[in-house]
């Protein structure tokens, strides 16, 4: 945590619209390993920024597309770019990711093509998931990016299991579970961290504390001072990092990864961030967000902050920056165009993949549905 990187008031007490106070807690302890790795390496700093910009623009675009009815739903990540991209850069390609539904920045850095993500948002014939899932619930085996589900927390125990399996196979990798502040209340958070502690799993628990679980503020989610300190209940360390500062995040994840791979067990990382947008396109934060809170956090916009840093570091000029945004905008537009032009998903495909081989009943259903569809189209 860069001392003094935020003005006190953000970490202090915010007042909700209903007069309840939600305590923002300054990190109690910040772990610093003896050989603390530096932040995002020089060679990847501009790349990191490019990912942040791309994520920001995808967000913007998707919110519009949803309003236009061209995608059905969207979960924005605005405000959480540094946390996700810093984390993604600190991982190795062989590490297994167990995402929640808000990890678009992570997916991009992992190398999931934007078009592939858009295909998923539409659920078209290009969608690897065959149109089965709501937008944002994607997963790509070839990127070690496990497919998300909606019920919160379930990925946490699974990440532990995969970590133990990797260890058994002799693979020197880490597994990492992503989840939000609200999800620390879930059954699987408890079971997953406990199993990880007992079995010293090579697993990182990456909590993006964006201060809200839909309309419930962090202070009403749990009475502990920080989320990170919950790790103690399971016999390992938790650390709080400033999730608006990409280098902080990178460093903490590198350390946790080293620990995992060295056989030193799990780590819980609480990245303190803020959700700038709504919970999802179905949500209206005006109903619950206290006046002024968003504005305060926006002063610490991770994208703008990192741009300024890069400019100060002499790695980026204002002109570079403009070009970079433009290029990213073009990339988004072109990927969307290609995705949107693809034909819809095969109508019978929703009957596949229930089992490795369909049951007789599913084969019958397929035959009957095919006949019905043919009839509808006036075919014999």
């Amino acid at each position, binding site marked *: 945590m860069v001392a003094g990187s935020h003005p006190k008031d953000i970490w202090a007490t915010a007042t*909700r*619209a*209903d007069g*309840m106070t939600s305590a923002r807690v300054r990190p109690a302890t910040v772990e610093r390993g003896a050989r603390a790795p530096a932040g995002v390496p020089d060679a990847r700093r501009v790349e990191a920024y490019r990912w942040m910009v791309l994520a920001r623009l995808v967000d913007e675009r998707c919110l519009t597309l949803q309003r236009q009815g061209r995608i*059905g*739903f969207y979960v924005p990540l605005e405000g959480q770019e540094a946390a996700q991209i810093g984390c993604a850069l600190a991982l190795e390609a062989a590490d297994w990711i167990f995402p929640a539904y808000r990890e678009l920045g992570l997916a991009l850095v992992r190398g999931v093509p934007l078009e592939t993500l858009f295909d998923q948002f*539409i*659920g*078209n014939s290009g*969608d690897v998931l065959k*149109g*089965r*899932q*709501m937008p944002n*619930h994607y997963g790509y085996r070839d990127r070690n990016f496990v497919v998300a*589900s*909606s*019920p*919160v927390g379930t990925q946490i125990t699974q990440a532990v299991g995969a970590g133990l399996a990797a260890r058994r196979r002799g693979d020197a990798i880490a597994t990492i579970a992503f989840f939000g502040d*609200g*999800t620390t*209340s*879930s*059954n699987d958070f408890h079971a997953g961290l406990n199993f990880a502690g007992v079995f010293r799993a090579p697993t990182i628990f990456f909590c993006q504390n964006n201060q809200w*679980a*839909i*309309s*419930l503020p962090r202070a*009403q*989610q*749990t009475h502990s001072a920080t989320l990170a300190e919950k790790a103690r209940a399971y016999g390992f360390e938790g650390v709080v990092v400033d999730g608006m500062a990409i280098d902080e995040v990178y460093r903490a994840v590198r350390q946790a990864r080293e620990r995992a791979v060295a056989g030193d067990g799990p780590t819980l990382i609480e990245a303190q961030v803020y959700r700038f947008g709504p919970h999802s396109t*179905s*949500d209206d934060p005006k*109903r*619950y967000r206290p006046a002024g809170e968003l504005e305060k956090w926006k002063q610490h916009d991770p994208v703008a902050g990192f741009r300024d840093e890069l400019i100060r570091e002499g790695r980026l000029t204002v002109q570079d920056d403009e070009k970079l945004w433009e290029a990213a905008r073009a990339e988004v537009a072109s990927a969307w165009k290609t995705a949107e032009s693809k034909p*819809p*998903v095969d*109508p019978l*495909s*929703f*009957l596949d993949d*229930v089992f490795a081989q369909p*049951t007789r*009943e*599913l084969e019958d*259903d397929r035959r009957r*549905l095919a006949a*019905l569809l043919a009839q*509808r189209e006036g075919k014999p």
Partner: protein
Amino acid sequence: MTELTLVQAVNRGLFEAMRQDPDVLLLGEDIGLNGGVFRATEGLQKEFGAERVIDTPLSECGIVGTAIGMALYGLKPIAEIQFMDFIYPAFDQIVSELAKFRYRSGGQYPCHVVIRTPYGGGIRGGLYHSQSTEAFFCHTAGLKVVVPSTPADAKGLLLTAVHDEDPVIFLEPKRIYRSVSGEVPEGDHRVPFGVARTAREGSDVSILAWGAMVPTSLEAAAKLADEGISAEVIDLRTLVPLDEAAVLASVEKTGRAVIVHEAARNAGFGAELAARIAEKALYSLRAPIARVTGYDTPFPYALEHLYLPTPERIESAAREAVRAG
């Protein structure tokens, strides 16, 4: 009488129940300031305070376990589960505890919790915002299972649920939360449990349905009428207790049964209806019992319109039944 949507009727029912009895309280995720993600609890926290309309941490296990403790102590908690798909973290509390408290204590500990939850497809919710797993709860002795299909019933059954002495799983068909509206009586309107509603009378075939499938079945019945097939539509309203007599009477009259539900077919509640008819009204049957249901797949996103029963599929089943005998 006021013209209300279904979700408004639920909201009015909650207002009424809370006004009637200070022991009634609500707990759930995002039900306070936010008024619930579907706005079913809109305005309630403002009216009754945060002590009676309680925003809880994100734990269905905690919500139901806490509600049970409150009920044991004598309060009348109404728990909201944000989507039926998210009820499973609380499944142990519901199946092992809520359903069995009265029984296992020899009648000493009634445990009256109402669990409200929006269920069903048709809102592009994919695998996890679309499920209808009422069969799980029907199979669990000790739970009552209620599914309104009209605004008046939503309010009337909810008030009956709140005044009942047993645990109630109250399933709200979110697909028709706003698309259906109707006259709803003011005040303490109650609709009894265990009494099915004949949504449309007919003589050739009985269509048995509940929740969001009732309007779909009525659409089918209207089209069938154009072809000269007179379909009766029975809205079960409560699955437990079941108005078996109404089901049997209708099938005995028509000789044909088409059962409609959104849930997967295999071991769905439709099977139970078929089994009862095959046991108790076999000799009246003029055609095989048909089920028009969701498929035995998880609930899909892009193709939900093919997954869900449509009037077309219901009509076709009814037509076949009529053709059969």
